[in-house]
């Protein structure tokens, strides 16, 4: 009897917690369709804030920046991270402690320390050499830095899950080093690569703190734009952009999940 009461209590708590988790997002989505310019009362359904978005040059440029940043950095991180992941796998019997520390560093470092380190460093390099002017370039560098470890770990774990004799079978069946990459390794880890790409993309779009500190005046991304808009004062327009971003990230994240799940038995 008491056990059932406990279970009922837990079920209620579960739904309460889910409500807690989704309420802030639901409010954002709901009020993005609000006809009134109010965050307190919902007067009717309208798409006026979405229409307003379309005409806002700043938002469109922030959107473009976010997209360029996410795609460029993800592609770069995919290349670099994939190489490291394979290197870690191939040389897994060596003592690679230093490499593991290096790989985990971007993951464990608090965002704010990550962001200001790079900002301070970039600013000084720029003062000394004129290189690394804050802007999309520095943001791409920063994003690639925190994406590399995730790509490397995903690729590594895919390789570890393979029968190591497959590599030998490919050699044995006349595949030259280049052909092994093209006809064996890349097709075999394709799901991991796709998953890693979407994860990198999500991480990039999601990031605010690191972007904020490495951005230049012209390179605001959507989160930076939203941040600025919030600082200026809450506007329902923010709800509309935020809703679009929630949707985009959810799609990318689900894609990443789908591809990481689909593995040959």
């Amino acid at each position: 009897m008491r056990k059932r009461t406990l279970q009922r209590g837990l079920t209620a708590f579960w739904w309460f917690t889910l409500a807690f988790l989704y309420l802030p997002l639901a409010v954002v989505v709901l009020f993005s369709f609000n006809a009134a310019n109010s965050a307190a009362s919902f007067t009717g359904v309208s798409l006026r804030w979405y229409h307003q978005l379309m005409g806002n040059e700043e938002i469109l440029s922030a959107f473009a920046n976010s997209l360029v940043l996410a795609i460029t950095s993800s592609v770069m991180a995919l290349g670099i991270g994939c190489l490291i992941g394979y290197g870690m796998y191939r040389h897994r019997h060596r003592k690679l402690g230093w490499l593991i520390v290096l790989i985990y560093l971007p993951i464990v470092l608090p965002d704010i320390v990550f962001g200001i380190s790079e900002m301070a460093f970039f600013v000084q390099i720029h003062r000394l050499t004129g290189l690394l002017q804050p802007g999309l370039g520095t943001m791409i560098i920063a994003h690639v830095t925190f994406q590399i470890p995730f790509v490397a770990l995903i690729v590594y774990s895919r390789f570890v899950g393979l029968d190591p004799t497959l590599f030998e079978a490919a050699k044995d069946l006349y595949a030259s080093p280049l052909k092994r990459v093209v006809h064996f390794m890349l097709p075999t880890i394709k799901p991991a690569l796709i998953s890693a790409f979407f994860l990198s993309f999500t991480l990039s779009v999601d990031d605010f703190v690191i972007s904020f500190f490495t951005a230049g005046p012209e390179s605001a991304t959507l989160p930076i734009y939203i941040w600025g808009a919030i600082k200026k004062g809450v506007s329902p327009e923010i709800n509309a952009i935020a809703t679009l971003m929630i949707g985009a990230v959810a799609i990318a994240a689900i894609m990443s999940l789908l591809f990481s799940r689909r593995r040959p038995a």
Partner: protein
Amino acid sequence: MAYTGVMPSARSRAMVREARHLLFTVAPGAVWIVIFLVLPGAYLMGVAFMTNGPYGLPEMPLSLESFKRLAGFGFLGWSPGNLYTLLRSLWQTAVSTGLVVLVAYPIAYYITTCREKWRPIMLLLVVVPSWTNQVIRTFGWMNLLAPGTPLSGLAEGLGLIAPNMGLYPSSFAVTLGLVYNFLPFMVLPLYAAFEKLDTAQVEAAQDLFASPVRAFWHAVFPQTLPGLLAGIVLVAIPAFGMYVIPELLGGGKGMMLGNLVATQFSGGANWPLGAAGAILMLIATFIGLFAMRRIGKRLGGGEEVVI
């Protein structure tokens, strides 16, 4: 075919080839991280020991000025502002981590009691909100806690806040934001611990100890302890360095170390002071990682970092 005497050692050639392979695959990424993260980090640490220049930029000579200022010793004698911020960060971290544990523990347990095919979906439901941008999630709370909203109205009605004040900005809003933000980080390791729970031990304990409370304390809790500790590390470290949530929900009196550091690199412009604050966060991070390693070793398995 005649054996043609000593040939160049195949062994050493193979070693050279392997070393070259290692270099080719690992070097690009390793060099990238060294140049764009390790060097900047080292530079920042150096900055912390320099003197604040006219535009907030670091200058020679080396000094411990910034650390003194963090502890409250400024030009105008002792003022507790920075120290308050530090203590507030510790307090917020402790309170929010504690609350996260209180919510996550029953949730993680509840998921393991549900049917196996639902569990991944339930975990997903817990994790999905954290995929959205932090700024947007925090903005959602601003909408919910602003003056005039039902939640604020409720608080007003209960006499918890003054009329028309709203629930934000406030320390309470920051705590709420932190709990919201870090809940999944705690649920995942706890769920992993509950899933591995040895039910035979629990049943034995139910036989031995009459009260369920004692059975829980002796049989269940110790088994979930590693997951709990891992969760605490995963929550407390980033909470201590949090920037976005106190900035948006906290207002002037809700400032945490992250805001203090960030301010020194933008408006306030005192790089050495900000760098000194960053060093505190780094120390906290390394303590956390060290604790994590110890937990990992106690578990006896490979340490999996929950992302």
